């Protein structure tokens, strides 16, 4: 499929000239690539990327994220300027959602999302691993490196057909160099509600110390 020229555009119909495109923001290559990777599996998407202005979309219109015009039309007593303001907000949201929701991509190594906190005596690593059982995860720690390995299966349930597929199967290995040495013997890992929490107590030499000031 070829990159469309102005699929983010919104066509405002005018009586004589046929129409004017008030947003001609062309998605850049990065956006387009992500979009294509994400939706390439859905055959009906090929015809019109976002289906904003097009009436030709058959299936996607039932699942359309971007019902901007419908929502604007439903708005009561909107002045043209307010409507444009809304439109701008919707466009921002659209890009924002698109960026965010396309973030966990298969094979990009960005999954799972991981955060690290320094609580003082320990480091706290949290990884978002929805749908993973403890046995599907492997956590390895040495003095200064943490490695997470795992796999998430994702099969279409028997007898079901797919309308939308944003969740994926993942096989991942992520390694982190830790900001301080840790006591590998004392590391604890726990999984709860799809969040893996790893508590890594710092090694003695890295523990924060209070220095007492003596008077002479």
């Amino acid at each position, binding site marked *: 499929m070829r990159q469309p020229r102005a699929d983010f555009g919104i066509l405002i119909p005018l009586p004589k000239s046929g129409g004017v495109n008030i947003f001609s923001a062309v998605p850049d290559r990065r956006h387009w690539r992500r979009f294509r990777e994400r939706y390439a599996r859905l055959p009906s998407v090929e015809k019109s990327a976002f289906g904003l202005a097009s009436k030709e979309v058959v299936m996607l*219109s*039932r*699942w*359309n*994220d*971007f*019902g*901007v015009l419908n*929502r604007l039309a*439903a*708005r009561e007593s909107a002045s043209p300027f307010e409507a444009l303001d809304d439109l701008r*907000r*919707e466009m921002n*949201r659209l890009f924002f*959602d698109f960026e*965010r*929701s396309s973030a*966990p991509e298969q094979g990009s190594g960005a999954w799972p*999302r991981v*955060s690290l*906190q320094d609580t003082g005596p320990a480091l706290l690593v*949290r990884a*978002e*691993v*929805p*749908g*993973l*059982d403890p046995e599907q995860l492997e956590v390895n720690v040495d003095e200064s490196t943490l490695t997470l390995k795992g796999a998430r299966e994702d099969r*279409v*349930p028997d*007898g*079901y*057909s*797919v*309308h*939308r*597929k*944003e*969740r994926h199967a993942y096989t991942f290995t992520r390694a982190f160099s830790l900001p301080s040495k840790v006591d590998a013997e004392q590391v604890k890992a726990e*999984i709860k*509600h*799809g*969040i893996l929490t790893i508590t890594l107590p710092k090694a003695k030499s890295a523990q924060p110390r209070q220095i007492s000031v003596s008077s002479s």
Partner: protein
Amino acid sequence: MIAENGTGSASRAIEKTRPAARRFVPPVDIYEHPEGFLIVADLPGVEAEDLSIEYNPPELAVTAPRAEPGESGVFERRFELGSGIEPSTIAAELKAGVLRIELKKSAAVRSRRITVQAP
């Protein structure tokens, strides 16, 4: 039969007076089978008591707080259910941060297999 809605009109009114909480769009799978639909969403860190699934015909809204470090806000996803769904049978299950919502089709729209009889 299920379309997706963006920010609803109620939250739009609020948006004008105060900045809305940061909104996260959880990835969602939607499946169909002859008897109904299945919606599966990743909601890591969400507990059942914090999850809100509201059906306000025709809209089904799924919202839950998200409180990860640096990622706090709300998970939000809205769907518009068509008339072909039996609202009384909506069932949801949250397990290991994965939400499954089962929707049954009403009898009128289920596809039926017609058997051809030999004369």
